[in-house]
């Protein structure tokens, strides 16, 4: 709660809205004891006095009534009616929505059909019909506005409730012996209330507008009582001759609604956890680069040379050092595996190469990536764009979410070529079909016109591979391309990838968490932990003789098929949080060999015999130490 208020106060616009609204509410509460003239006493002699007249700060209306007094009394009435309508609509609508969403099935169906019926009206028709039946009057206007808004709440809250009701914690509560009513009130409701508050804070202004609108039409408050809407309605006939009588109540409505909207947006932002974590910000076309030191010099070796790369995430005041001084290089036609657990920085390293780390919050703070002699970090957008997909292509993890759901796969393939090479339409289609054939998709001629959702996961990932191959790139960066696939499908996709890289002589940087995959596919491997490479070498060497204690332990953790029932090896403790890394070796707190020195200063890479390890007490000595 305190966090909520802090967040709200930090938002200056919301704060301003809150202050204005508080003043308006306070004044309207105090209206009965303020020294105001009676609002309904007419004095035709003083009619249409201009603002700032003697005794009438805001002037008088067509019956000589004091406008200031009427304005404040009217504000009081409008606020009260609007708030009451909002509360009624929110309570009834939310209750309907929660019941429909939680129980689902026929209950849900029947209720939501009814709600759909009500929403099939342009809302004012329903309000007008209700007022027509009940007769004009403020109370009836309130009922009409509340009734019209109930379906909006019901639908909104139902959607949220459905999402929550399918969460596993609701199942867990059932198994723990809770009944429906208890689950609704203790498990669902606490999670829905913030949404109801958001919905209310963003619609209350709207309800005030609506009741004012009905009064404006003469269907709400009846004379001599006046809310802001009816004041405006009565003033309309004198709009041209005495505009101030219209401007005064109109501006008041505007100020109230505006301040409520400002505050409502603030409440929404403060309550929405996604906004809080910055997750709703749009990633820019390239990752922000803010290198703090001068970058390493080129031209670099191999097709891709990553040097001392540092990528961080800046969320609020916290800095997550996702990638820290990572150096890797890939030779033409080689397959380099990068292995690590979640949070080790392997995917961020891969995405940093072409500036695809989501930014904000991602920032590349150091290092360089050389390709063809030029540094890609800090390269202009146009340079990066020309290389993306043409020289360096990507394959991502989940093939369902990485293909555009509304564009045919053939068109997506064709686009990959077209953005780099001017090719005619007919030829593009043929190329797309050829590519699908290349990745062994049966019936390529008809599959080219399929949408992604019409294909299985394995087929979609083949399309993604075809897309990466479209321009015969020099390097493909594959970010866990088989993790989301079933094991039998994974085996086929992996062997396809292995065939293709030999056929097309393309280098692959293969990101994975699976030692089995690395062993089968990769020539060399780099092991990452806590944002750093802890060990690097040929796959055979590392698998046979891991040098870093983490590598060895991790390999022991992987259960292998065929060994039968057994106790599994485990690494004690948890992977490090990259916003709070220890000064020395990140693995030291979990390492059985750790000594005092390990935690003091950053550990340097030791190189030898084509291998490198970041450890003071490696498991095996690297052959023929070279001077650093």
């Amino acid at each position, binding site marked *: 709660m305190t966090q909520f208020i802090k967040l709200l106060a930090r938002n200056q616009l919301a704060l301003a809205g809150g202050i204005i609204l508080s003043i308006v509410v306070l004044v309207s509460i105090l209206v009965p004891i303020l020294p105001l003239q009676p609002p309904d006493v007419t004095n035709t002699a003083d009619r249409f006095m201009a603002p700032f007249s003697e005794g009438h700060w805001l002037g008088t209306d067509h019956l000589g009534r004091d406008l200031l007094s009427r304005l404040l009394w009217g504000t009081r009435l409008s606020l009260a009616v609007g708030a009451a309508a909002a509360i009624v609509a929110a309570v009834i609508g939310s209750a309907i929505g929660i019941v429909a969403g939680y129980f689902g099935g026929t209950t849900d169906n029947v209720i939501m059909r009814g709600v759909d019926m009500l929403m099939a009206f342009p809302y004012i028709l329903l309000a007008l019909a209700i007022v027509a039946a009940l007769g004009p009057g403020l109370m009836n206007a309130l009922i009409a506005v509340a009734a019209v808004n109930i379906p909006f709440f019901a639908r909104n809250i139902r959607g949220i409730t459905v999402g929550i009701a399918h969460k596993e914690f609701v199942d867990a509560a059932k198994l723990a*012996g809770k009944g429906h009513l208890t689950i609704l009130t203790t498990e669902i409701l606490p999670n829905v209330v913030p949404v109801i508050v958001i919905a209310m804070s963003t619609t209350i202004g709207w309800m005030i507008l609506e009741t004012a609108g009905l009064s404006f039409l003469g269907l709400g408050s009846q004379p001599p009582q006046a809310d802001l809407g009816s004041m405006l309605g009565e003033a309309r006939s004198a709009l041209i001759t005495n505009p101030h009588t219209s401007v005064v109540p109109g501006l008041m409505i505007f100020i109230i609604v505006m301040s409520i909207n400002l505050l409502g947006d603030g409440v929404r932002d403060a309550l929405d956890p996604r906004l809080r974590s910055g997750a709703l910000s749009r990633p820019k076309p390239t990752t922000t680069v803010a290198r703090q030191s001068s970058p390493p010099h080129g031209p670099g070796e191999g097709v891709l040379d990553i040097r001392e790369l540092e990528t961080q995430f800046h969320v609020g005041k916290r800095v997550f050092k996702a990638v820290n001084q990572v150096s890797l290089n890939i030779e033409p036609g080689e397959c380099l595996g990068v292995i690590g*657990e979640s949070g080790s920085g392997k995917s961020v390293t891969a995405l940093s190469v072409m500036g695809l780390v989501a930014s904000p919050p991602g920032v590349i703070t150091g290092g360089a990536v050389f390709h063809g002699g030029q540094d890609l970090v800090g390269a202009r957008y146009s340079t990066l764009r020309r290389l993306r997909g043409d020289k360096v292509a990507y394959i991502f993890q989940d093939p369902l979410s990485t293909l555009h759901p509304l564009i045919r796969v053939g068109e997506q393939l064709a686009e990959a070529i077209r953005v780099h090479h001017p090719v005619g339409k007919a030829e593009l289609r043929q190329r797309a079909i050829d590519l699908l054939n290349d990745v062994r998709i049966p019936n390529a001629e008809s599959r080219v016109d399929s949408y992604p959702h019409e294909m299985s996961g394995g087929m979609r990932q083949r399309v993604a591979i075809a897309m990466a191959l479209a321009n015969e790139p020099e390097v493909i960066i594959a970010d866990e391309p088989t993790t989301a696939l079933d094991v039998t499908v994974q085996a086929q996709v992996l062997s396809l990838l292995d065939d293709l890289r030999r056929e097309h002589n393309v280098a692959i940087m293969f990101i994975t968490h699976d030692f089995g995959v690395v062993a089968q596919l990769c020539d060399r491997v780099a092991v990452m932990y806590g944002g750093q490479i802890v060990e690097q070498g040929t796959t055979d060497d590392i698998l046979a003789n891991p040098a870093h204690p983490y590598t060895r332990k991790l390999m022991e953790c992987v259960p292998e098929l065929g060994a039968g*029932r057994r106790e599994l090896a485990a690494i004690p403790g948890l992977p490090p949080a990259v916003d709070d890394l220890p000064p020395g070796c990140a693995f030291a707190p979990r390492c059985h060999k750790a000594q005092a020195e390990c935690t003091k200063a950053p550990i340097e890479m030791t190189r030898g015999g084509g291998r490198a390890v970041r450890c003071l007490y490696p498991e095996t000595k690297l052959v023929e130490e070279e001077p650093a």
Partner: protein
Amino acid sequence: MSLALQLDDLSKTFPVGKPLFGPAKAHVRAVRPVTLQVETGETLGIVGESGCGKSTLARMLVGLLPPSTGEIKIEGHRLNNANPAEFGRSIQYVFQDPISSLNPRKSIRSILEVPLKRLHGMNAEARRARISEIFASVNLREEFLERYPHEFSGGQAQRIGIARALAANARIMVLDEPVSALDVSVQAQVLNLLARLKGEFGLTYLFISHDLAVVEAVSDRVAVMYFGAVVEVGKAEKIFAAPRHPYTNLLAGSAPVVGRPLTPPEAKGTELPDPLNPPPGCPFAPRCPKATEICRDVDPPLEQMGEDQFAACHHPLDA
């Protein structure tokens, strides 16, 4: 040996495109009739790929889904869905996604209190003592009890989920992919914890996973599911080493293994049959290298093949 769990012809069909009133247009058979026994103190592993019906089966076992046909007997008594408190005391569930199985707005203590209060009617003092006891047994520090779920890592949250299941004091636990959301180094911690708890409290496990190696490492027996049916059951140490069903063989041959060269496994395709329009015969026939005429016409029943091993296949592989 007594039976902890007995399933007889248990199946589940889901209606598709059901109108407001009247019968549905079509049905999807998520689980085809399954008959299985689990002995007390045993760990039965269930493996299969996505869409094979293993999670639907699990949810039926704990009463979260009513079965379409068949029945479930827990320790000789028929499972009664109507009384959640009753089956909650006999069988519990550990969820795949540890974070989403904990209500984000409740402290860990209040999450753990629910089964104690609801299922066992314990008073505040007894609950406090029991929670300390359980928490210690899953290796978590007691100060965590006042925290909220988002403050925990996946591995810790999964221990909390296990603690909640333990609190119900059930003797049977259904573990639905309990470690697949966790990193390898943490995965082993949780698996070993589960093994220890089993010995300590004399539990019976149903361990569901897509990871063959994990299942093999923790199970006494393993059931392999394909397209909603159990296609093979056998001892953990034998079933992948000497599979009788070609699908089990395909699974075992597909898992990436250090030191085995990369060759595509022997299978014609990867597509599952259309669940709305299942083929009449063996559902694996379209992918099976050994399929013949009979396979496409007659769905084979589960038959005993050798000691302790059952497979549903017309042309089983040699032992």
